[in-house]
């Protein structure tokens, strides 16, 4: 009876495992490769905000970030025919974004005016801001603006490589291994850079830290 049960399990139609993000992306990529250009818009809608966030925090400039995000998406669109799915689409397009931004930062000889992005309303009501406001007895709006300036300024003081790791890990929430794949470095290098970058940021932002 047990044997029958085992055999029945083997020959029973396997339950379809839920498709991972990687598989979903790959399916869309294959549609684009087959000539369905409109399918690329699904990928744009999915990744544009993440890409913009990474690039904005790397450049601290809203207009540059907008242009570079568009450049990234167009580069991806032009090269998607050569994408073979060996890595995930997410890793691939993040790598394009990082490389495009790095090239831009190398060309940008001097620091440009930092144009800030709007802070979301929910930040003003966040626990951290509430605590900072209470201890500092400063008006919330002023504090948030000041903190935003100080954070952007501190990030720009880091080298582009250290900034990349901080942005991808602390702001975008990527894992060390994912960052290592995007930046084509080892996990150890990612950890080392992150450690050093945090030390530097603690120094720059010591006035806000407990």
């Amino acid at each position: 009876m047990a044997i029958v049960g085992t055999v029945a399990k083997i020959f029973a139609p396997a339950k379809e495992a839920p498709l991972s993000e990687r598989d979903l992306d790959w399916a869309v990529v294959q549609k684009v490769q087959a000539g369905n250009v409109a399918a690329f818009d699904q990928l744009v809608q999915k990744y544009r905000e993440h890409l913009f966030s990474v690039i904005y925090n790397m450049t601290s400039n809203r207009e540059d970030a907008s242009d570079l995000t568009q450049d990234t998406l167009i580069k991806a669109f032009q090269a998607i025919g050569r994408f073979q799915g060996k890595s995930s689409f997410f890793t691939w397009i993040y790598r394009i974004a990082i490389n495009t931004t790095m090239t831009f930062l190398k060309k940008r000889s001097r620091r440009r005016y930092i144009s800030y992005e709007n802070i979301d309303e929910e930040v003003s009501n966040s626990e951290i801001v509430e605590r900072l406001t209470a201890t500092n007895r400063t008006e919330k709006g002023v504090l948030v603006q000041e903190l935003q300036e100080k954070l952007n300024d501190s990030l720009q003081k880091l080298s582009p490589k250290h900034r990349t790791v901080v942005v991808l890990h602390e702001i975008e929430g990527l894992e060390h291994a994912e960052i290592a794949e995007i930046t084509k470095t080892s996990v150890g290098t990612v950890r080392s850079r992150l450690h050093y970058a945090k030390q530097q940021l603690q120094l720059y932002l010591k006035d806000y830290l407990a």
Partner: protein
Amino acid sequence: MAKHSNDPQADINIEDLLRLKRAERPSDEFWSDFDRDLHQRMLQTLVKKDPWYLQMLRGITGRMGQNVGIAAAAALVAMLVVRPVFVGTAPAGVSVADSAAVESAAAPVAVAMAELTYSEATSSASAHDYAHDVISADEAIQDAGYTRDFGMERIQMASYDAVAYSADSAHSRASFATSGVASLVF
């Protein structure tokens, strides 16, 4: 700004502060402009994309054009390198454009220059010879071993001042001084 570390309740670390950056988000209006611009740029990319055979043709002609360009550049460099060599060998006052004339005229000019130099070197001896009023050709003829069929001739040479000779006489003087024969060729 005052330090926040004095507050014992505050336990804010660097990760907390960086997390605030996640809240910096563009407005919906920004994204509608972004999408419009992006679609325009993507459309341009699509329009610009030519069929494979045109791309291939452009690649080939591009390479040909590149080769022609390289050849032209090489010719220009060669001209720049060779020109100073021509200029260096040409006599003063003769341009490269007259190189044909230079080739044909070079030898006579060199000979004439040599003769002039020689005559200048022997000018003192010549002056001395001209001091003699009579130059005998008879002795030279006797040495040649044939009988003269004309009478003893003596060529009278005017003992002019050397300055009175024309430029052409330089050649004559030189011949005279070297051969010892009074065959003055004018």
